[in-house]
């Protein structure tokens, strides 16, 4: 383990980064020593990913100094970061499905030989796989045939293979089982003992306390505190991440507890992440699926919207059984879906706001196969007014801010006859504070009109601002279901960041 006197492996000094008007990182400083396992904690939008991206050569800071082993070291590309001795295990698995495990382990490595000696590559692959507990995995297997946990371990094995001086692990355990997490911890401790400095980015505070020597907490792009993990307990760490517990006024009267759900879900299984889920959403109720990235909430939303061919289970809308696996069937049954990626799965960026708003209801504005402009105009105008964009009705959506784009996407789903449930996946991702409030108002007004809402979110503020009922998920399973008024941010953070079996220890 590191000592305060050992030389610094990495030094961030006064690093700043903004994306447009949004300040992602302000005057951030961090020191890592050889052999140290250092956690980086903070809620979504705290700036953790920006630190990781700067270090991995994926973005450049606006200001500040970065040193590796005492020399200035600003990576301008992932290859350069690798040459500087930085290896990254990204939260989004970066393996190529069509290649074999051995090929993936060699991919992008700065020191890979020109000739691909398969026997040598497989032997090296076996060594690396053994270090993460995958002794029996055949290196010739295609990555596409691996389970999610195995993929994550292969990704970690690849980073270990780079013999890096600095290893970044960005949410490495989000998809792993307890046994797999044990292998990862063993591997991390082993590279740390060899002198590698490890930056461990995680929402899982139990793991942070168990594995890491020290921790830095970020909030809103600012450094809150750096401390040894022995100086803190989980509750203090949560407090540092949250700041103060915000006072929240009840913005709307949630629907009464009684009455059957307009949407009932029983045994919804979505391989490989969600083994089985039961849930009810009543008319006018707003239900949050709260959890970290990879907890399964997004999978549930997408499966209900018909975007998973492998989903099974019983879903009833107003008593009628829904056939899963078809977006068209889901829409016809009254389920309206808002993807978390508005650009590739939501908007026609080059078309106007009005065109986008009416895109899914052209049938009711057509006669004999022709779209009648006189029918389009009033509907487009009314919808644009309802989302506060009447004056920009003829602007191309690509010209709007992220928040306004999201309003257009949501606006399209509103006031559709027959809608029973809005399925919203991260409804305010990449949206500023003002836009977020407007979007929340739109969702609330839809619920007030009697439409059920089920949304997935990783953001605590959003969950508590919007939800009547909070369903916390962890590793594909429901951990707790509670009325918003009967739970607290502390409790939800605990549920989101700990496995069910150690919940009692935290609560």
């Amino acid at each position: 383990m590191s000592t305060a006197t050992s030389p610094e492996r990495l030094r961030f000094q006064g690093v700043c980064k903004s994306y447009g008007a949004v300040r992602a990182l302000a005057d951030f400083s961090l020191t890592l020593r050889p052999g140290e396992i250092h956690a980086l904690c903070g809620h979504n939008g705290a700036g953790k990913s920006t630190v990781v991206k700067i270090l991995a050569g994926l973005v450049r800071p606006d200001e500040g100094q970065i040193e590796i082993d005492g020399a200035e070291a600003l990576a301008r590309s992932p290859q350069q970061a690798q040459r500087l001795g930085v290896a990254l295990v990204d939260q989004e698995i970066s393996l190529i499905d069509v290649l074999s495990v051995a090929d993936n382990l060699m991919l992008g490595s700065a020191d890979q030989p020109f000739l691909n000696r398969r026997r040598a590559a497989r032997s090296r692959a076996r060594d690396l796989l053994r270090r993460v507990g995958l002794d029996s995995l055949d290196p010739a297997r295609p990555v596409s045939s691996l389970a999610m946990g195995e993929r994550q371990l292969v990704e970690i094995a690849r980073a270990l293979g780079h013999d890096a001086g600095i290893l970044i692990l960005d949410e490495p355990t989000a998809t792993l089982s307890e046994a797999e997490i044990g292998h990862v911890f063993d591997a991390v401790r082993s590279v740390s003992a060899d002198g590698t400095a490890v930056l461990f980015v995680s929402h899982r505070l139990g793991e942070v306390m168990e594995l890491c020597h020290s921790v830095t907490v970020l909030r809103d792009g600012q450094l809150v505190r750096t401390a040894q993990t022995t100086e803190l307990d989980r509750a203090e760490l949560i407090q540092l991440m949250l700041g103060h517990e915000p006072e929240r006024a009840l913005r709307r009267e949630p629907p009464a507890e009684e009455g059957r759900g307009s949407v009932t879900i029983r045994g919804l299984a979505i391989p490989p992440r969600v083994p089985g889920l039961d849930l009810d959403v009543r008319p006018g109720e707003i239900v949050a699926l709260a959890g970290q990235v990879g907890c399964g909430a997004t999978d549930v939303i997408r499966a209900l919207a018909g975007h998973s061919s492998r989903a099974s289970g019983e879903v009833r809308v107003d008593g009628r059984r829904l056939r899963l696996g078809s977006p068209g069937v889901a829409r016809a049954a009254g389920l309206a879906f808002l993807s978390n990626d508005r650009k590739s799965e939501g908007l026609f960026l080059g078309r106007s706001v009005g065109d986008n708003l009416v895109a899914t209801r052209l049938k009711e504005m057509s006669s004999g196969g022709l779209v009648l402009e006189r029918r389009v105009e009033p509907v487009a105008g009314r919808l644009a007014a309802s989302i506060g964009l009447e004056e920009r009705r003829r602007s191309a959506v690509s010209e709007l801010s992220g928040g306004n784009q999201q309003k257009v996407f949501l606006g399209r789903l509103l006031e559709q006859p027959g809608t029973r449930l809005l399925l919203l996946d991260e409804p305010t991702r990449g949206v500023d504070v003002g836009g977020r409030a407007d979007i929340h108002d739109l969702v609330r007004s839809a619920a007030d009109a009697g439409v059920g809402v089920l949304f997935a979110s990783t953001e605590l503020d959003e969950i508590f601002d919007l939800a009547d009922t909070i369903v916390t998920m962890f590793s594909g399973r429901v951990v707790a279901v509670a009325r918003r008024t009967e739970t607290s941010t502390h409790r939800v953070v605990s549920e989101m960041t700990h496995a069910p079996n150690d919940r009692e220890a935290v609560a």
Partner: protein
Amino acid sequence: MSAALKRLRSLSPEVLSPVLFLLAMIGFFLIVPTSQGHPIGSYSIYSVLQTFGTYGLVALALGLTMIAGEFDLSTLGMFALGGMLAVKLGESSAALGIVLVVAIGALAGLIQGALIAFLRLNSMAVTLGGYITMIGLTGTLGHDKSVSYLNVDTAIKLDEPIAEIFSRHSLIVLAAFVLVALLMGFTRLGRAVRAVGGDRKTSRTVGVRVNLVLIGVFTLSGMLAGLAGGLNAYSLATAVTNPGVAPLVFAATAALIGGVTVAGGQGTAAGIAAGALAMSLLQASFGILASPIWVTEIVTGLLLVVAVLLTAPLIRDRIANARQAYESLRARRTAGGID
């Protein structure tokens, strides 16, 4: 035997497809013409390999860009331009003509590849422009007429039978396939090409030089298409101004039945060779039977549909699900039996 069966079952459709199609076409070639009173001799095999020699490299050029997740329509243009340039530039020395044509093909591929990689342009659009320009240049060079190659000795030597079934033409093409197969199978370039085709964003993240790979693939594609055009013109002792779409149809079908997927990331030079050979066998069989051209076209179209169906994600998902369910059922039964 059961181990071999198990291995065969575990093969992906991308590997199974070329094997199955090639076996099917060999069977067709050996049985159908003979049953109709046209026995197969060494000349029949020679003509199969000549067809392979004519269009095989176009299939390889196109297939390589498809593995990288792109589509090079200009292979057809380069095939035509390569023929015309080889005839014009190689009158004194056929070898010099081929070297120049390959170099010009490389340059054309490099320019297109650079545009696609650095400006992130769609390859279909860029190479459609390339194709039209090259066909235009070919017409201009030939004054809109076919041009004869006067060095007839070269033509004769190129197609002279060797060991009854080969010719210099088909051997050069086979050698080019072997070289590309070695490059793709035994160097880091092959891995990088499949990575770029399989997932470009991830490839960038993990440090693959995506732009260099794309430029390299288009350069190689230009070289191979130019070589194919040059050899074909020498074989026929004529360069035509517009070869029609037959070489492209052959190339795309051969690549797809050879296990290359439109989505990219999958396929091998050996698979493309198998696909090109299967297509050559099909064409030779119908040639021997003197079938009308539309019969060949219908069968080729159907083959293409079957090949694409084999790699359809939904069908693959369903097959994988069914296989998983079957294996877990078997495992449960085995466990029950042991208990």
